[in-house]
């Protein structure tokens, strides 16, 4: 059976996580690391994917920076995205040749993990054609944005557990006007601890990817 290491990182600044991902990605490509998933939340940050339109950032970048919201570029696919505390971010560093050699399958699988977690909480979320991510009506509950080189992945998914939804007003989510962000906490009307969602995401990931998922330390993995 496939094995995937699950590495909890806690709250990490976007740039730091990006550096780490790039390092792990190149090690994985050289076969010097096993498949792994980084599980974390970010300090508030707006990131621009490869197809980003800067006009989809609604705040003035200087004012944003002053209010503690970083703006950063990312090599993942997609437009403008917000990340912040209360959002579960998973960055799988996987060699897809050991799973399915298909970008479409991979994006589907990441959405599937989020859909199963949502279903665990009794939330009926779904997919919208041409709009990757998971949705509850017009509300975006989870986002996907990935980068693949040599069939090894980085970046991944972000599931809104209980983030500050006001922060999403700083952007046009994924460049879609009229789309709004929602969260598990907002839909349930109660607090939802991130650790609990992380655990459920781990189980869902194991099922969707057909893998045994074992917690690990980043130091243990990189030596």
């Amino acid at each position: 059976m496939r094995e995937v290491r699950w590495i909890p990182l806690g709250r990490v600044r976007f740039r730091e996580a990006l550096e780490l991902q790039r390092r792990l990605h190149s090690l994985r490509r050289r076969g010097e690391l096993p498949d792994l998933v980084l599980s974390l939340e970010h300090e508030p940050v707006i990131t621009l994917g490869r197809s980003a339109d800067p006009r989809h950032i609604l705040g003035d970048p200087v004012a944003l920076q002053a209010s503690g919201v970083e703006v950063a570029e990312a090599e993942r696919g997609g437009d403008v995205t917000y990340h912040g505390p209360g959002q579960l971010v998973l960055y799988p560093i996987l060699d897809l040749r050991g799973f399915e050699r298909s970008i479409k399958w991979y994006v589907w699988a990441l959405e599937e993990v989020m859909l199963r977690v949502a279903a665990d909480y009794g939330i009926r979320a779904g997919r919208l054609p041409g709009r990757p991510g998971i949705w509850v009506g017009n509300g975006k509950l989870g986002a996907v944005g990935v980068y693949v080189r040599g069939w090894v992945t980085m970046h991944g998914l972000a599931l809104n557990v209980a983030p500050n939804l006001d922060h999403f007003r700083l952007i046009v989510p994924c460049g879609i006007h009229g789309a709004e962000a929602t969260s598990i906490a907002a839909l349930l009307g109660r607090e939802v601890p991130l650790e609990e969602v992380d655990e459920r995401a781990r189980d869902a990931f194991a099922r969707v990817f057909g893998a045994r998922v074992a917690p690990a330390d980043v130091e243990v993995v990189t030596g």
Partner: protein
Amino acid sequence: MWSFRFLLTPQAIRMGSRKEVTLADIVIPPLGEVEEVRVVRWLHEVGDEVQAGEAVAEVESQKATFVIEAPVAGRLFAILVPEGKAAAPGEVIGKIAEREGER
């Protein structure tokens, strides 16, 4: 893969000689049920040296960026699908003039 003899064409001058040049295709590989991608970024300009396996372009489909690597070492000779344009898996998006003796 094919071979051309360029006689003092602008390309040949840029290649620095009028000898035979072998062009290698930069192809979008099968990505798994993906019918169309968009070329989002060329990481080199025509004329740049590239190493075999070096990232030369990025294509995107449905929130996924996929990196296209140089199949051989040489010079980027032509960009056939520019940034922002669509292409399909299997399509040739550029050509590399192979460095001699590196076949």
